[in-house]
């Protein structure tokens, strides 16, 4: 009986030693949907948790070399938009909203998306692209930022995400 209890306590101690893990799925490519995933993954690494991000569907824009630094703040269809949709739909309004958001982020010294991806790689976060999304959007590895380790199928993702808390954005 004592032996079992001791074993149990040892198991518990070993369990506590295992680092917490988080796997974030980024499926949206607008500025306001890109940052939450990137910041949360970086915060996890800063406190010693393991972190991985799986980019899929519109989230591929975040790691697309041509689009990574040009993400837009999408206000149409967003009930929190500070301006009415009838005005936000006018030409140039989305660009203006994006510009205002980027300006505010610069004031707060929030890195732009490409630098954020570099920081994540340096921090040891693992970045993966969705294989199926790459095929859908005709993307090759050379179209993606160099911080992306490899492309994964959905089943590969679950394999790598074992034991992680999963966040879908």
């Amino acid at each position, binding site marked *: 009986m004592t032996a079992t209890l001791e074993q149990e306590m040892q198991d518990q101690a070993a369990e506590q030693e295992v680092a917490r893990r988080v796997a974030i799925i980024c499926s949206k490519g607008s500025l306001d949907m890109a940052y939450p995933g990137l910041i949360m993954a970086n*915060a996890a*690494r*800063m*406190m010693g*948790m393991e972190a991985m991000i799986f980019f899929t569907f519109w989230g591929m824009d975040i790691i697309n070399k041509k689009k990574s630094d040009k993400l837009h703040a999408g206000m149409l269809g967003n009930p929190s938009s500070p301006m009415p949709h009838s005005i936000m739909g006018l030409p140039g309004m989305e660009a203006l909203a994006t510009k205002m958001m980027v300006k505010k982020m610069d004031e707060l*010294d929030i*890195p732009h998306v490409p630098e954020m991806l570099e920081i994540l790689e*340096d921090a040891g976060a693992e970045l993966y692209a969705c294989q199926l999304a790459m095929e859908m959007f005709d993307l090759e590895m050379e179209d993606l930022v160099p911080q992306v380790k490899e492309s994964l199928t959905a089943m590969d993702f679950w394999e790598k995400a074992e034991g992680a808390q999963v966040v879908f954005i």
Partner: protein
Amino acid sequence: MSTVLLAGQNIEVDKEGFLLNPDQWTPEVAADLAAQNGIELTDKHWQVIDFCRRSAVDKGASPTVRGITKGTGISTKEMYQLFPKGPGILSAKIAGLSKPKGCI
């Protein structure tokens, strides 16, 4: 709040192990806190610790990892080599400061 024995002193810490009273911090306390987290302090670590303590005095808060890399020129990669179990919290904890409030 609880009290722990570090470098032969009774030190008050919060539930996450951050010092409650920065005046109780000494370089020996830092070395003990580092050892508890598997770190042997090097000159580079001291550069970070000194920056954190200076920054806390100047700005009234512990610097974030981005603040440290920008302020010291130590790269993000190096920060993770110096504090493998989490540079965001360990830099402040070993420097005897409170948990940084920033997110980056």
